[in-house]
């Protein structure tokens, strides 16, 4: 019974997804607000159900599913991201004429996949979660059927994503050749000679490629800008937060157990080191040349993946989790502002469209500035503390040269984030834009909530951090 009860948060989301699908098929409503309401209610319920498990974490189905504190934190993160994205998409969908119920169903399905990924230690189950997520994501990216770019994004994402999945499968096959079980905990107890065997290392690298694709590490990042730009903006916000968090959690669990082993893992460390540097440098440098803000945020998210990789390397679960939470608020916030800038089926995401935004819509511009400054890592915002924790732990572990590269890369990022602010405030000539009606209240709620998150995490995160530490010490000994 307990086993089923522990599945409740996950099942609730899945159930809601199916109900919405049925409603869409047989219901008579032209208004989809019911669908959205059901979805939000399910996610909120799932948050409460998950939090309910905080004190009694347990592992079921022989390690295939576990409800530990880390999983709970990430489930809450995904549900939050889901709620914010649904609130964003509802006005957006109506505006852009793809008002369809299966959108919410797919989104919930994707979140189910994310939750499965976060709450398992078995690589096969993780892969199942990943596929659930991916298939839903491919469709979500192409939701704007009339839009060529959206379709292009879907196809590109699908082809490259399948390739990445193939890599993961092959990696798993290599692993299982060494060991009966694909459970991460049992991998730790493997004998040293097996761990150092080329087959095992090759499998590890293949997994790294596959998950590196999902979290968009350079050089597996090629899909990111196109998919981010083509997908509907709220979905882009979701892609940049959800799959990234889940992917990093899986990578973290994987490398955490591997680096705990007796074997010589310096070659793996070197690979991650190089990936991290490449991701930070390439992401930031290419972002410098972008004229489209959505694309710019895509490259910035690549750069952030680079910083997160540092946390992988220094086995810094606390920094990683905090960074992902902070990133949720600042990035969804920035995308919410982008959503607010679209009007009647058109989107205005060129830098020039931001000219004089500070005059036209001062509150929106101020919120955008806060999110950008947070992404750039200025105190007193969440972005600063997130970088601070990750970097300081890495230095403590002796990765000083890596951190010097990281801070120089983030110096580059300051330039392009500030350039958006320059366009919003300091360039007068306004573009010829259609008059925009006031923001829908749902959007304002999202933006306000993200602002709150950015400052709360930036100024008083002590409680959250102690929760994260508690979770890590109990779940990842």
């Amino acid at each position, binding site marked *: 019974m307990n086993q089923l009860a522990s599945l409740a948060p996950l099942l609730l989301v899945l159930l809601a997804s199916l109900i919405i699908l049925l409603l869409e098929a047989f219901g008579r409503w032209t208004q989809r607000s019911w669908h959205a309401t059901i979805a939000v209610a399910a996610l909120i319920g799932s948050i409460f159900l998950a939090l309910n498990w905080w004190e009694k974490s347990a592992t079921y189905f022989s390690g295939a599913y576990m409800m530990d504190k880390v999983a709970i934190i990430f489930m809450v993160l995904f549900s939050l991201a889901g709620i914010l994205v649904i609130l964003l998409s509802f006005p957006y969908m109506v505006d852009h004429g793809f008002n369809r119920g299966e959108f919410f169903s797919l989104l919930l399905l994707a979140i189910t996949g994310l939750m499965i990924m976060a709450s398992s230690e078995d690589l096969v189950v993780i892969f199942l979660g990943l596929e659930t997520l991916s298939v839903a994501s491919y469709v979500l990216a192409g939701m704007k059927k009339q839009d060529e770019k959206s379709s292009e994004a879907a196809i590109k994402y699908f082809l490259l994503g399948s390739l990445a999945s193939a890599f993961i499968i092959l990696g798993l096959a290599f692993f299982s050749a060494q060991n009966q079980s694909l459970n991460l905990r049992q991998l730790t107890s493997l004998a040293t000679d097996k761990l150092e065997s080329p087959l095992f290392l090759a499998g590890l690298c293949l997994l790294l490629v596959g998950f590196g694709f999902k979290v968009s590490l350079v050089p597996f990042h090629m899909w990111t800008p196109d998919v981010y730009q083509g997908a509907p903006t709220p979905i882009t916000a979701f892609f940049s937060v959800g799959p990234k968090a889940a992917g990093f959690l899986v990578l973290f669990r994987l490398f955490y157990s591997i680096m705990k082993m007796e074997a010589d893992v*310096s070659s793996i*460390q*070197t690979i991650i*080191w190089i990936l991290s540097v490449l991701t930070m440098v390439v992401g930031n440098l290419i972002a410098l040349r972008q004229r489209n803000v959505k694309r710019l945020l895509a490259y910035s998210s690549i750069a952030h993946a680079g910083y997160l990789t540092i946390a992988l390397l220094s086995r810094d679960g606390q920094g990683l989790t905090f960074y992902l939470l902070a990133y949720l608020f600042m990035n969804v916030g920035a995308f919410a502002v982008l959503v607010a800038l679209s009007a009647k089926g058109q989107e205005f995401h060129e830098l020039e469209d931001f000219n004089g935004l500070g005059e036209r819509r*001062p509150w929106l511009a101020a919120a955008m500035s806060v999110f950008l*400054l947070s992404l750039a890592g*200025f*105190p*007193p915002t969440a972005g*600063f*503390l997130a970088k*601070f924790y990750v*970097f*300081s732990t*890495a*230095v*403590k*572990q*002796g*990765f*000083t*040269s*890596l*951190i*010097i590269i990281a*801070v*120089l890369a*983030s*110096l580059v990022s*300051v*330039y392009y984030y*500030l*350039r958006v602010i*320059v366009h919003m*405030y*300091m*360039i007068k000539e306004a573009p010829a834009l259609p008059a925009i009606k006031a923001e829908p209240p749902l959007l304002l709620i999202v933006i306000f909530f993200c602002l709150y998150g950015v400052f709360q995490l930036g100024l008083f*995160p*002590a409680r959250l*951090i*102690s929760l994260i530490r508690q979770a890590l010490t109990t779940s990842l000994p």
Partner: protein
Amino acid sequence: MITFLPLAGAVLLIFIPGERKEWSRLIALLVSLITFGLSLILLVNFDASQAEPQLVEKATWLGYGINYHVGVDGLSLLLVLLTTFLFPIAILSGWRYIDQRVKEYHLFLLFLETGILGVFVALNLFLFYVFWEVMLIPMYFLIGLWGGPRRIYATIKFVLFTMLGSLLMLVAIFVLYSFYYRATGVYSFEFSDLTKMVLLPKVQTWLFLAFALAFAIKVPMFPFHTWLPDAHVEAPTAGSVILAAVLLKMGVYGFLRLAMPLFPQALAKFTPWLMVLSLIGIIYGGLMALIQKDVKSLVAYSSVSHMGLIMLALFSLNPEAIQGSIIQMVNHGLSTGALFLIVGILYERAHTRLIKDYGGVSRQMPVLAAFFLVCMLSSLGLPGLNGFVGEILCLFGVFQVNKIMAYFAVSTVILAAGYLLWMYQRVMHGPIVHDYVRSFRDLNKREIIYLAPVVLMMFWIGIYPNFFLRKMDTSVNLFLKKIQERQKYFVLQSPPQPPVTVITESAGIDDDLILNKQSNEMLISRE
């Protein structure tokens, strides 16, 4: 408390409707005046015989050594006062000229005040860094929104230059933090804890360079000064005043509070180089000031020159020089601030900053001419005014250490006399060449109100500097004693712990740690 009052004012301003320009001005002025009042209470309660920080507030913030810990001592007291003193004046200076986005302008000014005060009072390295960075945001907007034609270039240059330094400093802070943890097993960012630790010279060298770069960019010392003229020229008057009068002091203060006490060995090693750089700054700044066509950039380069003298004195490491450099920081704040105010007043009337566009102004504006003359003389160090006190102390101090340097340093006075008097002559005297000069109105009441206190202070410091100097005696002496004591040390002073396990693969730090461990063990074996 003082630190956050301006911020509270800024938050209040958010809720004032933007059309009520007068309201935002009044509120900003009131808030800054109350802050100044509170800092006077601080002055009264300050006990000059105590060397340690006083009026301390401490609270746990994030844990792991990150505390909210503030207080003032003799080194920071005057700078806090200078800051709170100048902000109301800066706000008054833009009373009429700033007519667009008035609310935001004052909001950023108050925000900036919080950042600057925070830097001066912070006693926790993390807190220090947070304020140090926070301060960039309002300054970025102040230059970028209300600045001159090349403001975007200037403001981005300003931010990127400062960030470059401070991010490298951040890495150094991490290293310092982890060294402290390895040495003692306790996490701490407290200045008082970190300065107890004596690191190996090789480590000190790198960390010192990172800190010194951040602060040298801020001061700015000679090769890192290129952002300054741009930022000054493009900033609005209040921006220039704050930038010159207070922001640059943050760099010097950083040296004084952090770079020097934390890394005494490295300091000893680099002192000659830093002194030469300061000297180059003095002469180069002075010469550049001589050839400027633009009044504002002339004053900006004069800042480079004056700051050079302050740094030179600071590195001489004797009581006279350090006291001189602190008092000279205040003086430079007053006189350069006042010069920027005056340039701002002229600019409001003529909308040009070029020297050749003026001439004969004193006939139309005798009151301004008088103020201008006093400020200028104060800046070039005429006895009886504040500049003289600071410069003479600085030069005395330098003279004790290195006579040749002192000879060269005297050139700051000569050069200053040259470029300032020449500028004054071209702007204020001579025949009226341009007709629009005839339409200049003399100072109005508001302008007199904000210039008068500055001039008053110039006379006060010039005639009776002891009031200020005695406040810092004990702190300065303690500061020097600590540095000298610690320069003799060579091992970790903090209680050694069993050698730390090192999980690392990167070069550099690794060897240092081994050395570090050895020294730890040496200490143990000796015991």
